[in-house]
């Protein structure tokens, strides 16, 4: 409760134009409310002199909380926090009655005045019951990001973050990335540059690369996460301010029994002349069922090395775009044949392997191959990542970001971000854009160097808690947990103050600062004119 009394500051400009609120009337109305120790009209609170005048008034009066009767708080909240702290009060020790937007602008004459009085009354009743939250301060945020992923996407995110002067820990599940990236590059040097950046990654001082690592434990608040990695059996701790998950599928040319594609010399040595390259799982959605640059480049390398070799590429579509189109034309000139297939071809026998399928134009086709190579997709291990960081996965098995439009890359867990591989869009430049936007979200969080924690957050009264786990289940941010005492505790740093747990708690053991049950009830009574 308020011991020093409540201050009510009325901004003259809050009256609006037509109809004009009688601000003096509001003044006298406010001074009549029990518990209000100071009432003052200030000309344009948001102006410099206005602020000075208000701060002086607060300091002079010994009130420990105040109500601002003015325009909408939407743009002014930071200003009022500043006024509060400069007057020696808690930054949240105030309430705003938006009499202009919620009365003057939307109601007629006397009704507007009565609504304004109600709004003032509601604000006073609410701030009267204001209780100082546990702490509302800045937590230092480490300027270091852990990026988890083996492929180019992780690399792109890392580059973007390092470009802003932060350091990166690149955590790779494997050794060197297997296979090749699934992307379609717009030209040769873009591909070369991308592959080169992978190779040189370890040389950059601002990035440490940790290979063959899996995440054992993940603790701590956003801005100061503590990871424990299992690096080839050894436990390696890692502290970072934010985490970006960038799992990326890889592609690899393999024989049917899984061994990597042989080089031209081997083929000649083994006298294998007719080679067919088929996207594996042509019909499955995951793997790309189109002819990727890898297949074409490999075929060109074979033909260059051993002219006698006959290579055919099969696939649902060719995705011929600028650079790819050039490659294909070159390949065709060199006698490499392209077959368009729809659905799964029939593959029988071994040396020679016979592939039969139905071509929409040419009818039933038959092709013999001395060696069949499959362009296989190596799907990344997303489930274990999601489990380690407690973030949800969608029905297709991809990391779920809260809102792909408004807040791309943000997951339910504050401080944990997810760069998502788009199956439908394989262009390298698009991937780089996505990686950049996700990196930007992480940077935005860490850029201030500090993070606000506490304030309007939930807190558990351990006496009343029946440990029914309801709050753990309903909280979208998994902020509550069961503490040592066997009762629920809310992790301040994870709580976003939505109040879902408070509404659900069967024992009324949780309440939230700045929007407590008693405050809501007091406001309703004031709004309904029950408070005389």
């Amino acid at each position, binding site marked *: 409760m308020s011991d020093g009394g409540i201050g009510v500051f009325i901004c003259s400009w809050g009256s609006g134009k037509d109809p004009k609120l009688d601000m003096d009337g509001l003044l006298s109305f406010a001074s009549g409310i029990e518990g209000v120790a100071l009432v003052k009209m200030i000309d344009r609170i948001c102006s410099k002199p206005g602020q000075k005048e208000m701060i002086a008034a607060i300091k002079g009066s010994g009130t420990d909380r105040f109500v601002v009767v003015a325009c909408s708080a939407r743009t002014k909240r930071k200003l009022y926090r500043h006024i509060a702290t400069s007057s020696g009060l808690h930054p949240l020790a105030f309430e705003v009655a938006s009499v*202009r937007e919620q009365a003057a602008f939307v109601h*007629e004459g006397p*009704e507007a005045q009565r609504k304004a009085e109600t709004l003032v009354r509601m604000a006073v009743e609410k701030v009267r019951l204001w209780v100082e939250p546990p702490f509302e301060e800045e937590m230092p945020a480490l300027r270091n990001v852990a990026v988890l992923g083996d492929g180019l996407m992780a690399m792109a995110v890392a580059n973007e973050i390092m470009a802003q002067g932060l350091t990166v820990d690149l955590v790779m599940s494997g050794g060197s990335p297997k296979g090749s990236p699934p992307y379609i590059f717009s030209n040769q040097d873009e591909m070369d540059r991308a592959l080169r950046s992978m190779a040189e990654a370890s040389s950059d001082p601002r990035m440490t690369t940790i290979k063959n690592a899996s995440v054992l434990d993940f603790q701590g608040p956003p801005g100061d996460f503590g990871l424990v990695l299992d690096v080839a059996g050894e436990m390696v701790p890692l502290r970072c301010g934010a985490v970006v998950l960038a799992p990326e599928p890889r592609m690899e040319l393999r024989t049917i029994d899984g061994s990597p594609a042989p080089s031209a010399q081997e083929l000649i040595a083994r006298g294998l002349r007719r080679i067919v390259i088929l996207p594996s799982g042509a019909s499955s959605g995951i793997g790309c069922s189109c002819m990727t640059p890898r297949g074409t480049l490999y075929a060109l390398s074979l033909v260059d090395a051993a002219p006698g070799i006959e290579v055919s590429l099969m696939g649902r579509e060719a995705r011929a775009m600028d650079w790819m189109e050039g490659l294909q034309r070159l390949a065709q000139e060199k006698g490499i044949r392209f077959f368009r297939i729809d659905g799964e071809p029939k593959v029988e026998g071994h040396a020679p392997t016979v592939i039969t399928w139905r071509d929409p134009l040419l009818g039933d086709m038959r092709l013999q191959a001395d060696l069949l190579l499959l362009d296989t997709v190596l799907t990344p291990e997303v489930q274990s990542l999601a489990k380690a960081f407690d973030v949800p996965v969608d029905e297709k098995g991809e990391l779920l970001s809260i809102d792909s439009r408004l807040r791309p890359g943000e997951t339910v867990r504050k401080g944990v971000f997810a760069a998502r591989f788009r199956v439908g869009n394989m262009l390298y430049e698009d991937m780089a854009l996505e990686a950049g936007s996700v990196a930007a979200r992480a940077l935005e969080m860490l850029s201030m160097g500090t993070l606000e924690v506490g304030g309007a957050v939930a807190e558990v009264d351990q006496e009343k808690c029946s440990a029914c786990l309801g709050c753990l289940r309903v909280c979208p941010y998994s902020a509550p947990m069961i503490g040592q005492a066997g009762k629920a505790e809310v992790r301040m740093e994870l709580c976003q103050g939505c109040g879902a747990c*408070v*509404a659900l708690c069967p024992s009324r053991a949780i309440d939230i600062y700045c*929007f407590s049950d008693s405050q809501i009830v007091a406001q309703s009574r004031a709004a*309904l004119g029950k408070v005389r």
Partner: protein
Amino acid sequence: MMRILAFCCERGPGEAIDLAGEKRMRYPADLTLIQVPCAGRVDVAHLLKAFREGADAVVLVGCLEGNCHHIYGNIEGRKKVDRAKQILDEVGLGGQRLEMFHVASNQPFRIAELAAEMASRVERLGPNPLAVKE
């Protein structure tokens, strides 16, 4: 004078309210708005207590489904409204006096719409009998 109490999420609906003010979109003064961090913050006891305090109609205003900043706060809110409606029917006040609306930050006109809708319901149902008794 009719009394309609609205519990509004401060994010989407909160912005819409300010925008409605900016654009001078008038709505009946009977509607009084209380801002809460999220529609999921309000529980059944708050809704019922409002009726005992004399509200003729109560509204819970949340963000559009799928657009909730707190992931599914609006869905939590709807569950509480459904439970409270059931109780109001059993009690005899009628669940019609309570409703949930979804308003995005760029839909200021919805505030006037929901006020009109609830006002017409109160006209049809009559004032809150408890308030009349006082």
